[in-house]
């Protein structure tokens, strides 16, 4: 059974924008990269997967739980960053993590500190988030998404604002989670190089439609880089 099962997901906004009939299945340990130009519908699709946007049609099932029928059961096993990692500015980094850990009383009390150390924010645990840079917020956001040992991670532009060291660190964490803990990771990003280095499957979304999906290894066999693959898919789609 797929961990994330998306069937015919559709959401139409004004001017014909949106997501159309998206069908996709992700298995345990997959790191799926969602690529597409601005306005292609990546964020809308991710918001529908997390229940933030109600679809016009279609269904999303996460670990067997329909997100619209059993949101609590589905969301309990998910960690997310959507668009940007917005923190509560008047809370410290540690308190921001506590906003998540309160829903998981079984977590050890040292877990927030452990995660902040992991993402390189241990030193700033007691500092209010209002003074953080975009990259620092992104790191704390990642810690919030991972603090409860989720089985599914939905990360919209997770590399945004991160410095090189942060990108390498994040890539390492995600690959370890997928390989060792079989976490299923769904990433959307416009940073094609990072997607190429991180993901083992790629999907291309153009004008709200999933036009192609393939394994990264397969793409590397056919094209010089993921960028070439992406551009060729865009051109092919435009010709059609």
């Amino acid at each position, binding site marked *: 059974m797929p961990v994330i099962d998306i069937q015919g997901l559709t959401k139409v906004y004004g001017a014909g924008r949106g997501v159309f009939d998206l069908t996709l299945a992700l298995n345990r340990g997959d790191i799926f990269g969602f690529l597409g130009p601005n306005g292609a519908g990546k964020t809308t699709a991710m918001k529908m997967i997390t229940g933030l946007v109600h679809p016009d049609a279609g269904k999303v099932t996460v670990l067997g739980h329909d997100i619209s029928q059993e949101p609590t059961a589905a969301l*309990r096993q998910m960690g997310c960053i959507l668009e940007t990692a917005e923190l509560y500015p008047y*809370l410290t980094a540690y308190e921001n993590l506590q906003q998540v850990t309160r*829903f998981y009383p079984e977590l050890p009390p040292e877990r927030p500190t452990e995660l902040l150390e992991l993402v390189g924010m241990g030193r700033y645990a007691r500092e209010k988030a209002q003074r953080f840079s975009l990259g620092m917020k992104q790191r704390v956001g990642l810690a919030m998404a991972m603090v409860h040992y989720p089985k599914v991670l939905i990360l919209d532009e997770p590399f945004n604002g991160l410095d090189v060291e942060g990108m390498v660190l994040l890539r390492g964490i995600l690959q370890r989670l997928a390989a060792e803990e079989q976490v299923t990771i769904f990433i959307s990003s416009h940073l094609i190089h990072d997607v190429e280095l991180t993901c083992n499957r790629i999907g291309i979304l153009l004008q709200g439609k999933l036009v192609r999906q393939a394994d990264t290894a397969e793409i590397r066999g056919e094209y010089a880089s993921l960028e070439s693959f992406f551009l060729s898919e865009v051109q092919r789609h435009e010709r059609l």
Partner: protein
Amino acid sequence: MSDFKAAYTNELIKMQRKSRLIAGGVVSLVATIIYQLIISLVSSGMGVRIGSGPSFALSVLSFYTATLLPLFAVFVVIDCFNGEYAANTMKQTLVRPLTRLQIYGSKVAAVGTFVGGSLLFMLLLSSTIAFIASPASFSFGGLGSVFIAYLVTWLPMMVFILLVILLAQFSSNGILTFFCAVATYIGLYVTRFFAPHLANLLVVPLFDWYVGWIAHNGSFTILLRQGLLLLSSGMVFFALGCRLFEGKNM
């Protein structure tokens, strides 16, 4: 239930961390002291005693529920809803393992706690100031009436706040919600002069509902009818607000 408790605790912590709450307490304290000073000056100047002991605590309640408390509560509602929409932090709450009903309920419960806490704070503050100013005029019976007055005022105040929370669902703009809340408050207040027979349905005129509770000749039937009207209005506002909140796309 544990998830609801976690969400409620989160809301209270967010509320407590904002400096606005402390500012509200300070403004209430200063306003009450100024109010007592004015009353003392008027009393000594006119040779009459106005508002000493329990009657001072009740006049503070009347002043506080007509002015500062609705204002502070509207700010808290805007912080809880519009502020979170604008800052994009509402998404953080919505991706927690909760239904939208639980999220809405936890926010309403937190605002209700704020209203209750504010009334308790003013009860203690006004009673203390009144006791210091005029210890001889205090009695346990009088203190009991004051306690009942502050306790029952929570209900009409909460119903008005549920109406403001409903208004907050129509826009993510906090300023718009603020002006809508003020206009609604004034509208409900003024309407009772043109349509006195509708006063029980207008919520705001019932902010002094406590008067019936502590009056010696208060009718239980009227109080019960008004209480049921308030409860039903509150339930309608809650249900409508929750319906809009559930249907929102973030």
